[in-house]
C-alpha cells in the first residue's frame, strides 16, 4: 500500500509552467486593477493610466539595456510577442526575401507561426541542435542567405535548460541574414540579457516568468527593425498591438523587472546550488540521465530522462508526495506526441516518454532536496517494478 502524502507541505518545481506573483509586485500593481481611465483618453485619469504604462516601459527597457523605452511593445503574452516578431517581420519585409529559420527546439509559439507562413509560400527551415541542445553554428551559417528575414533562437530552453551562445549566433545571422529574434521567456530574470551587447533585434519576454501577473508580455524591437501589425485595430503600442492595455499586468511586469534586476544575481546563485545538488543526487539513480547541457544551463533548471518508466506516471506519482514536476511525455500533451525538443536532441521516442523536468523558484530551499530525491527514488522503484521493460 502506497500512502497518499497530500498533507505534506507542497514543493513546487514547475516554475516554467507558472510562477506565483511576487507579493511586492502585487502590492505595487493592485491599485491599477481598479484604474478606470483608458490610456487613450485625454482627460486626466486617462493620462494617469498612460503614465503608469510609460513608467513600466522605462523599467523594462532598463532591465534588458534597450536603447530607449520606445523599443518596448506590450502584448498579452509571450505567444503573442513571438507571433508579432515572426509574422510581423516576415510580412513587412517580404519584398526582401521569404526565408525564415528557427532552431529545432523552439517553443511551438515560434514554430507554429513559421509553419503557417510556410503554407503561404515562405521557405521555413529548422536548424539542428547537438545532443545538449546547442544550435549547430555551421548549419546555421549554411542555412542562412540574404533572403533570410528572421531567424528565431531561444536564449534558454524551457524543457532542457540549455543556454544558447546568442552573441555568436547574432554575428552569424547578421553576416548573411536580416533579423535575429530571441525568445527570452525562460532565461529572462535568471541570467542577464543585454540586447545591445548581444546584438538582438527582437526579444520576447513574459511577465509571469518574472513573477509578474499573467496577461502581459513584451516584444523588444531594436530601432530601425521593420515590423508590421498582424492585428489591426485602434493603433495602440505604435500600431503593433491594438487593444486597450492591461494596466494592472503591465504595471506589475515593470515592477517585476525592477526586482529581478536587483535580485537576479544572488537568487540565481542560490537556485544554482539547489539545482546542482538535485542533479548530482538524482543522476546517480540507475539509468537516469541529465537532459540538456551540464554547464551552459539555466540556473533554476534540472531535467532528466529515466529509462523504462513513463513521464506522466512520474508526474502523478510525484504529485502524491505533493511535489509538482513537468514532463515532455506524449501522454501529458494534447497532441499525444513526445516533446519535439527531446526528439531534436536525439532521444528515441521510448526515451523521450520518460522525461522529468524540475524548474526552481523563490519558494524552493536546499533543505527540500532530500525529500525531493527520496520521492524520485521511491517513484522510480515503484514504476520500474510495474514495468515490463528492462
Amino acid at each position: 500500500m502506497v500512502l497518499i502524502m497530500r498533507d505534506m507541505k507542497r514543493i513546487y518545481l514547475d516554475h516554467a509552467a507558472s510562477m506565483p506573483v511576487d507579493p511586492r509586485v502585487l502590492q505595487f500593481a493592485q491599485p491599477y486593477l481598479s484604474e478606470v481611465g483608458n490610456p487613450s483618453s485625454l482627460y486626466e485619469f486617462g493620462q494617469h493610466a498612460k503614465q503608469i504604462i510609460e513608467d513600466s516601459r522605462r523599467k523594462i527597457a532598463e532591465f534588458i539595456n534597450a536603447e530607449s523605452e520606445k523599443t518596448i511593445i506590450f502584448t498579452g503574452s509571450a505567444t503573442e510577442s513571438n507571433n508579432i516578431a515572426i509574422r510581423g517581420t516576415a510580412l513587412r519585409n517580404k519584398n526582401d526575401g521569404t526565408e525564415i529559420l528557427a532552431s529545432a527546439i523552439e517553443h511551438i509559439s515560434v514554430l507554429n507561426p513559421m509553419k503557417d507562413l510556410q503554407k503561404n509560400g515562405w521557405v521555413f527551415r529548422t536548424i539542428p541542435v547537438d545532443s545538449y541542445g546547442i544550435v549547430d553554428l555551421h548549419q546555421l551559417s549554411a542555412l542562412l542567405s540574404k533572403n533570410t528575414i528572421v531567424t528565431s533562437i531561444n536564449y534558454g530552453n524551457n524543457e532542457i535548460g540549455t543556454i544558447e551562445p546568442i552573441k555568436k549566433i547574432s554575428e552569424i545571422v547578421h553576416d548573411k541574414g536580416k533579423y535575429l529574434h530571441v525568445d527570452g521567456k525562460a532565461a529572462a530574470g535568471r541570467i542577464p540579457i543585454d540586447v545591445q551587447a548581444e546584438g538582438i533585434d527582437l526579444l520576447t519576454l513574459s511577465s509571469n516568468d518574472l513573477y509578474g501577473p499573467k496577461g502581459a508580455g513584451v516584444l523588444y524591437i531594436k530601432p530601425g527593425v521593420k515590423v508590421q501589425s498582424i492585428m489591426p485595430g485602434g493603433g495602440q503600442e505604435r500600431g503593433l498591438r491594438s487593444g486597450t492595455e492591461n494596466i494592472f499586468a503591465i504595471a506589475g511586469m515593470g515592477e517585476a523587472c525592477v526586482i529581478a534586476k536587483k535580485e537576479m544575481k544572488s537568487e540565481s546563485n542560490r537556485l544554482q546550488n539547489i539545482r546542482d545538488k538535485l542533479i548530482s543526487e538524482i543522476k546517480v539513480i540507475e539509468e537516469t540521465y541529465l537532459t540538456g547541457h551540464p554547464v551552459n544551463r539555466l540556473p533554476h533548471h534540472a531535467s532528466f530522462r529515466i529509462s523504462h518508466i513513463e513521464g506522466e506516471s512520474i508526474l502523478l506519482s510525484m504529485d502524491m508526495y505533493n511535489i509538482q514536476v513537468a514532463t515532455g511525455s506524449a501522454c501529458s500533451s494534447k497532441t499525444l506526441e513526445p516533446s519535439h525538443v527531446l526528439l531534436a536532441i536525439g532521444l528515441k521516442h521510448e526515451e523521450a516518454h520518460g522525461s522529468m523536468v524540475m524548474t526552481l523558484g523563490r519558494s524552493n530551499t536546499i533543505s527540500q532536496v532530500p525529500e525531493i530525491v527520496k520521492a524520485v527514488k521511491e517513484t522510480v522503484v515503484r514504476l520500474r517494478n510495474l514495468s515490463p521493460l528492462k
Partner: protein
Amino acid sequence: MPVYSKKVMDHFMNPRNVGVIENPDGYGKVGNPVCGDLMEMYIRVEKDIIKDIKFKTFGCGSAIATSSMVTELALGKTVDEALEITRKDVAEELDGLPPQKMHCSNLAADALHAAINDYKKKKK
C-alpha cells in the same frame, strides 16, 4: 494534463495483481514502448475459470489503472465471460477516463483478450 477520477488514482497508486506468472496458461502483450504504452498480461486457468491473473505495464496513469482494473474484473470469471469485458467496461468501472485517454491508454481489455486467446490456442 488530464484530470483523473479518484478511482483511477487509487488503482494507479495501489495497483492490484502486479507481477508475472511462471509458465502461465495464457500470455498476452499489447502496445509498443515507442508509443508510450506496453502491457503484459498473464493468466492461470482451471476448468476454464481464471484462477490467477498478473500484469506488468509501462505507460501513463490510465494505462496502469486500466491494467489493474481489468485484472480485478477478470479474476474468477470463466474465460468466455472475461472475453466479453470491453474497453468501455474498464473505463466505466474506473468512473471514466479523460477523452484523449479512451483510445491510446485503454488497452488493458485487449491485453486480457490476447492472454485468453493464447490460452484457447494452447488448449486446442
